[in-house]
């Protein structure tokens, strides 16, 4: 897959001296959904603000489809749609007018047909003549997305699109985002919600303290860093783990009725067969067993901790 956005050695130090980005290098592929995960203040919004032209970078460069974001800003910005984190909408304008304004601002001639399509896709057609101030928070969020799509961008930046949005609307958003990807739009979203990245992203990038800690295919990341755990439900309470089983670094639950074995699923030999055999030798009987895989959230927490 070809690289659509290329970020090289990008740094940003604000006038107060705070270094928000520290030498970011990242390639974003055409047609993918990339989720940027990171705690508050990690630099996610600064990164996308620089690419979109809201903030000047201190050093480094960004190209979009081969064009530099500073020297060829007209080319790069016309390809990008941005949905900001805050609900920053006009108040007195109608929904339809605000979309027409956005389309014009991005240099596209009026196209009522496209505006109608976007409004219908975003379930806003019924509200097209309403003033924006009359809409609910969820609808305003959809208006922001519709505004970003009014000029038919190739790339869509969504800065925490589902922050403060109820579960139903969040799922609705995911559906819309997936539909956009299907239509060929490259999507970069920042989020706090791991489940969001897990649900819709192709790749996941983790930012912490202004640095990209890792960028991986979501499934590979989970496989590579995902630990598996085997939990054995014992038939009889166990006071201590016998010394003969020390090699497995087993954890015994407080009630003595569960043994937990953590192993790397990528290893050729997981050690499960040996463990079961040694348990038999130690006369420890179990009535049930199950395995669990660590979630993206566990991986994220581990990565951020290690990054610190």
């Amino acid at each position: 897959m070809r690289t659509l956005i290329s970020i090289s050695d990008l740094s940003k130090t604000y006038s107060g001296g705070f270094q928000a980005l520290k030498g970011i290098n990242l390639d974003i592929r055409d047609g993918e959904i990339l989720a940027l995960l990171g705690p508050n203040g990690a630099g996610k919004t600064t990164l996308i603000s620089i690419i979109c032209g809201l903030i000047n970078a201190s050093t480094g460069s960004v190209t979009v489809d081969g064009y530099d974001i500073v020297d060829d800003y007209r080319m790069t910005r016309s390809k990008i749609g941005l949905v900001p984190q805050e609900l920053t909408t006009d108040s007195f304008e109608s929904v339809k007018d605000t979309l027409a304004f956005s389309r014009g601002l991005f240099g596209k001639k009026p196209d009522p047909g496209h505006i109608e399509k976007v409004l219908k896709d975003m379930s806003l057609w019924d509200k097209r003549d309403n003033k924006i101030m009359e809409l609910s928070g969820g609808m305003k969020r959809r208006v922001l997305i519709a505004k970003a799509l009014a000029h038919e961008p190739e790339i869509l930046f969504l800065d925490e699109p589902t922050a403060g949005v109820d579960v139903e609307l969040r799922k609705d958003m995911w559906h819309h985002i997936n539909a956009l990807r299907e239509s060929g739009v490259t999507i970069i979203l920042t989020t706090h919600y791991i489940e969001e990245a897990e649900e819709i992203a192709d790749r996941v990038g983790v930012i912490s303290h202004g640095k990209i800690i890792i960028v991986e295919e979501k499934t590979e990341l989970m496989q590579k860093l995902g630990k598996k755990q085997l939990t054995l439900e014992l038939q009889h309470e166990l006071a201590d783990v016998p010394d003969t089983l020390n090699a497995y670094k087993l954890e015994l639950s407080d009630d003595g009725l569960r043994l937990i074995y953590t192993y790397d699923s990528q290893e050729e030999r997981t050690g499960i067969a040996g463990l079961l055999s040694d348990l038999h030798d130690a006369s420890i009987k179990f009535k049930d067993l199950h395995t669990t895989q660590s979630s993206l959230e566990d991986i994220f927490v581990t990565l951020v901790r290690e990054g610190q």
Partner: protein
Amino acid sequence: MNFHAVKAIYLFEMARTIRTLFQSVVSPVISTSLYFVVFGSAIGSRITEIDGISYGSFIVPGLIMLSILTQSVANASFGIYFPKYSGTIYELLSAPVSYFEIILGYVGAAATKSIILGLIILSTAGLFVPIQIAHPLWMLIFLVLTAVTFSLFGFIIGIWANSFEQLQIIPLLVVTPLVFLGGSFYSIDMLPPLWQKITLFNPVLYLVSGFRWSFYEIADVSVAWSLTMITVFLGVCMFTVWWIFKTGYQVKK
């Protein structure tokens, strides 16, 4: 040139005026009528003619200038301050528009509104006093130049302001006093010699004087000086706006 963007900004700003059409048109008509009742009839009847012009007619260009200056500053400063305040400026900054196009949209709309307002006041004044326009083309040139210059000045105030209070402070404490002290309602010949000298430092004097000349061919300072001063002020405003966008002052972090 992104003409669609200029048009979008211009129409967006003009739509704001249309939404508030009643206040936009009726309030200047009422206030102008009040000025004529107070200055034209009540006080003006006791003032002798100035250079052969009745006092009521004499103040018309000054009244129009008062509205043009204050409205240009108010329209343009609010136009750019509000997106800054509400956060919607993100869209402007992320759009493929040049600084020139942004200014053309905002300042163009603010100046258009002021010019329309000026013409409404002129028509209203015509209902109260006889008006003659000796040089209609020059009258329009002064009107447009002043509206554009002070809209640019308002744009700068809108960028600079960090609160609604700051947005009001320059128009209230600087623009309005300068207009009142700039010979809008009197000829500076009526002032003592020292104040005449001091008034020459007031840039508004040159605007009012040039504008009044286009009506009655009477002026406190030469027309060439009036044109020079307004061009200088326009140049200063253009340079300041260029610097604002070059450095990102108050706009980009």
